[in-house]
């Protein structure tokens, strides 16, 4: 990623270190210390039984062995990925579509300001408040069921939270609603940085709007798109509050909506730094691996 700066810059390079100081200092104090203790702890038996501290006793890789022994962790990984994809695919498609429309001058959309402002609004509602509203609306006796029964679509009320796919879909919908505005804003901010003279030149050359979008907007947007994909992937792997609150932390039915972090949260109840640490290291490795794939994939495209 490093750009080849010209030789004049060399004498200024010490400023690179100086500008990094605030980040590094704060990071060392507030994040690295807790992080190292997390990794360190993953090799120890270390939890609370009531008010009694058990350990820390060195156990080598026993926590990791326990983690993989039942195979559950892969189920939670699968759940996480499924719910992330269910929310992310529509999210990125809708965001790109909106971005394309908003940035297309020949479409002359009125009320852009209004629409751009409105799409981010759901993100302002706390996840817990949002979940409370979802409960009310999708309850057996709630307005959604009442409506579906009224119009004859359903014979009797459907328990949305008691069925695997409807529960997962609700999680995905809530995630989509909360985050598609966020993604759209990111993409739009990227699009705004694109030099308008490029568009003008393309239009003079008679390019269609979809050509402009594919040949100018998308390539120039690539860094931001990579950002959106990576951060959304990381956010997805860390999906927690929405399914946690919607299922009261149970991941029901039969843990089919339980994500990795929800599982991690279960171990935090007993302050199980050992198991929690091992699970975090696993999460860290798998997220890193997936991010690497995304980077690699984009590099290949670059060359083409």
């Amino acid at each position, binding site marked *: 990623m490093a750009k080849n700066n010209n030789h004049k810059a060399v004498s200024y390079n010490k400023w690179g270190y100086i500008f990094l100081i605030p980040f590094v200092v704060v990071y060392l104090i507030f994040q690295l210390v807790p992080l190292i203790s997390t990794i360190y702890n993953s090799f120890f038996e270390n*939890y609370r*039984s*009531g*008010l009694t501290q058990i350990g820390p006793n060195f156990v080598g890789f026993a926590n990791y062995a326990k983690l993989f022994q039942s195979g559950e962790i892969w189920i939670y990984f699968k759940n996480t990925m499924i719910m992330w994809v269910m929310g992310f695919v529509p999210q990125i498609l809708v965001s790109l579509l909106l971005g394309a429309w908003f940035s297309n001058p020949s479409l002359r959309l009125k009320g852009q300001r209004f629409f751009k402002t409105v799409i981010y609004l759901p993100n302002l509602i706390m996840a817990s408040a949002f979940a409370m509203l979802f409960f009310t609306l999708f309850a057996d006796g709630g307005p959604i069921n009442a409506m579906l029964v009224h119009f004859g679509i359903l014979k009797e009320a459907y328990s949305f939270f*008691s069925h*695997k796919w409807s529960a997962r879909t609700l999680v995905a919908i809530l995630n989509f609603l909360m985050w598609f505005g966020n993604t759209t804003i990111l993409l739009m901010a990227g699009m705004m940085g694109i030099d308008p003279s490029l568009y003008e030149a393309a239009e003079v050359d008679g390019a269609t709007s979809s050509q402009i979008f594919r040949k100018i907007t998308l390539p120039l947007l690539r860094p931001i798109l990579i950002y959106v994909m990576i951060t959304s992937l990381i956010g997805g792997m860390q999906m927690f509050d929405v399914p946690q609150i919607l299922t009261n932390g149970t991941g029901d*039915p039969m843990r089919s909506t339980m994500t990795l972090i929800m599982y991690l949260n*279960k171990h935090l109840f*007993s302050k199980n730094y050992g198991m929690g640490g091992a699970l975090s290291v696993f999460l860290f490795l798998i997220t890193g691996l997936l991010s690497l794939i995304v980077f690699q994939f984009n590099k290949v495209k670059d060359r083409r």
Partner: protein
Amino acid sequence: MKRKMMVITLTAAMLAGITAAPVWADDAAADEGKVLNIYCWNEEFKSRLTEHYPGYEEVDGTHGKIGDVDVVWNITPSDDNAYQNNLDEALLKQADASDDDKIDLFLVEADYALKYVNTDYTMSVADLGITEDEVADQYQYTKDVMTDSDGNLKGLSWQGCPGTMIYRRDIAKEVFGTDDPAEVQKKVADWDTFKATAAELKDKGYQMTSTVNDSYRVFSNNVSTPWVVDGKITVDDNIKNWVDMSKEMVDAGETATYELWSDDWSKGFFKDSNVFAYFGPAWFIDFSMSADQDGSVGKDGGWAATEGPQGFYWGGTWIAAATGTDNPTLVGDIMRTMTTDVDTMKEIVTQDNDFVNNKPAMEEMAADESYGDAVLGGQNPLAMFCAGADKIDLSNMSIYDQGCTEEFQNAMKNYFEGNASYDEALDLFYKAVVEKYPELTY
């Protein structure tokens, strides 16, 4: 979302004759610490202390004064286990904390009381100078909750929360031909008849209870083995009975699987619902059943109370003294005043409608025929509450009760809804409990 608070409504007639509480001597604590740190999860105890403890003056939302002692309130909500996390950290640091930072007094709920009672972090009330005689009038179960494995009493409560079965009079009349509590009690005298009655109600289009979880507490309060025996998780026969009965009732459409406090669950408080009964203590009747709401059953006094198949309790807050407190005299005096002083307790009854933890006082009120609860159509349920409180036996508690209860209900919901077999649900329960308490096996 668990609500606690024992509340009863009393007629004006009962208010008469209550005199002001005597002023307790403050100077005994003169040579003790100058800061009293109290840990709790809501405002309930603070308002009790403000209104009923002689000499307590409020300074601001989190500070007060008793004589020359500063009272500091440390309030953390119980959501996400935050209260216990916070309390645990503070207790573990207790030995090294300076006198003014030490916790002096904290509150616990029954579900996790033993977690603190069975440790050295709580003081025996005997060490605070409170004798057995002084607490003789308290309901036995409130003392069971706070008794450690060596038989030491480690904390006290000012309230009692025995429960009853609360049913709809109009449905009882229609289906059984009578709404008389004594007659209806015959229909729910034990679980077999309860079950048969559920079928009878179903034939007329009614549901016995709003959810399976309504009756859970009645079963779990009457077990013969604790949740954990010698480090092994065990499911008591009576809990299994609850599962079997509940599954049959759900399959037959005689009840549902809603969570307590959910919208679907509380729909049964209103007239257009088909729910026959709920289980709850007095606070539940007066403050949870939407009796102030148009269209609710309670507004027109449409409910009645009966003992139900078995006795149980729901809710309650206990006061414990933290080991290492530098204010033992003051802490002891607060406990004594709030939980044993008859005049103070009567004051709590009349001012706050709290059902207090004093047997003779409550029985006296139970016998008062001029008292009736409007929500129950004028019925006086206190005798039933008193009888229920007597029968509660909590000798089979363990420090794991909160986690086990929660995970068991969660896991069984899958079984009831047909998403898992009983064994699969049971497996899930075991797994979830071991995640919470890694030291256990199954």
